[in-house]
């Protein structure tokens, strides 16, 4: 008897709600775990998840070739560790975990290589390490002379930062985190809601309140306070 025809390969797997065991890959996961033609089952899983994994690495800023290498490394880890997949969690969760570990491992290697590649001059100036341009610029022109007064602009800027720091510190924790995610990480309301595990309405309410409070506290320092 011929084996049943394979379903057409999707561009990426069909959406499945969290906790739903029936993903399009389930058939091949079951085939793998039961030992029925595991090589074929693995190939099907490879074809289904190659592109999502490639995207996972591309979204983290890796160039295309590196995304291929990391995706393939992830699949080899999947293959060698399939015994560790007990089916208690979704296969996709397990796959994501392996991809994340592969990603973090590559960052560690990248950082180590970068450290190994740093060149340091063996000729240090007398009295310690190399001085930065800023340090040289700040040196008094005549030894023994009093340090030049700080420009007014810098003083004002420091004052503004101090006021900002104090005003944000006054915000309740959840509200403050929403502000940081919005301004520093530039996330959309929907993304903030997903990260903070609250509704979009809650995010909007937090940001509305934060804007009101910050405007009141920082009116003298910022004219364009938008969140």
């Amino acid at each position, binding site marked *: 008897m011929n084996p049943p025809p394979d379903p057409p390969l999707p561009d990426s797997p069909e959406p499945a709600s969290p906790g739903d065991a029936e993903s399009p890959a389930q058939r091949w996961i079951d085939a793998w775990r039961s*030992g029925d033609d595991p090589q074929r089952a693995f190939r099907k899983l490879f074809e289904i*998840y190659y592109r999502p994994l490639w995207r996972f690495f591309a979204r983290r800023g890796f160039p295309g070739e590196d995304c291929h290498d990391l*995706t393939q490394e992830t699949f080899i880890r999947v293959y060698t560790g399939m015994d560790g997949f007990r089916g208690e969690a979704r296969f996709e969760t397990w796959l994501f*975990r392996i991809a994340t*570990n592969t990603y973090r491992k590559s960052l560690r*290697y990248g950082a180590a290589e970068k450290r190994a590649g740093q060149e340091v001059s063996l000729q240090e100036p007398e009295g310690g390490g190399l001085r930065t341009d800023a340090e040289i610029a700040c040196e008094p022109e005549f030894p023994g002379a009093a340090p030049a007064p700080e420009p007014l602009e810098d003083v004002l800027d420091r004052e503004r930062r101090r006021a900002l720091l104090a005003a944000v510190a006054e915000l309740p924790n959840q509200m403050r985190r929403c502000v940081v995610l919005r301004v*520093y990480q530039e996330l959309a309301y929907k*993304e903030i809601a997903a*990260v903070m595990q609250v509704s979009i309405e809650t995010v909007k309410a937090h940001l509305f309140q934060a804007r009101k409070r910050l405007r009141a506290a920082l009116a003298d320092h910022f004219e364009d306070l938008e969140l």
Partner: protein
Amino acid sequence: MNEPTDFKRTFIATLETAAAEPSGWVGGPWERHGGEHPDVDRLLAYHRGELAADDADELQEHLATCRQCTSLVSDMAAFPHLEAQPGEPGEHEIAQAWRRVERLISRQPIAAAASAVAARAAVGAAPRMPPPSRRAPWQRTAVAWAAAACLALLCVGLGSWNLRLEGRLADLTAPRPNVPVVDLGNGGLKRSAGEAVPGVPAGDGPFTLYFYPDLAWDRYAAFEWSVSDEENATVLSGGGLEERSGTFTLGLDRGSLTPGVYQLHLRGVPKSGGDAVRLVDYDFQLDAR
């Protein structure tokens, strides 16, 4: 794209300055602290809402200023339906990638298949026999032809398999100069002791691990070994290790491991009987090519 406002510029600058003085309302961008990120299981537990309130609160504080972990948590919700990225691989590239991966995994045992067979044997499940059926004479002829065709295919397959085996045998018996030998020492994990982990140079082909633990040799009837990766998953294992003048050697193929840090575990089967006991663990590292 809009120019960042004065408020936004100052906000980011304030946050980044706070990294040097973590006494502010946030510790500054996490990456600048050089601190450890929460492990992926903790992020997954947060995503599933399984963390205790205090723990979740602490994690949210980290997420606010850590772009890396925030993007992972965002992707957890979306995976595998992530947004398409420029330069996506086409079918041809995926097929090419499969050929590369297939070459690598062909050197690995098929763990799942082996364990499934073992599980079936353990529960004593008898193979299911098809019920006897009465066939028409033309059906019997067709079955005979199909069987003959299968037999012919099997012969061709066995022939080509034999040729491949001969080729691989020739590879194995050919002299191999410059096989790296890695001295793992007499015991103990290097990483936990802060020592350098012995490294295997990049390249293809075999390498030999050489180790000489301090053991009461006469207590053990046999020795087994296994190699696990950084996630503590066993990637290779076997038995048959023999002690020669207090020394063990183990030859492995670099092609069967991806670059990374591994642990070699030595176990001994006690003469007094019982299961093998864990004796010594060694770290070694396969360098990136």
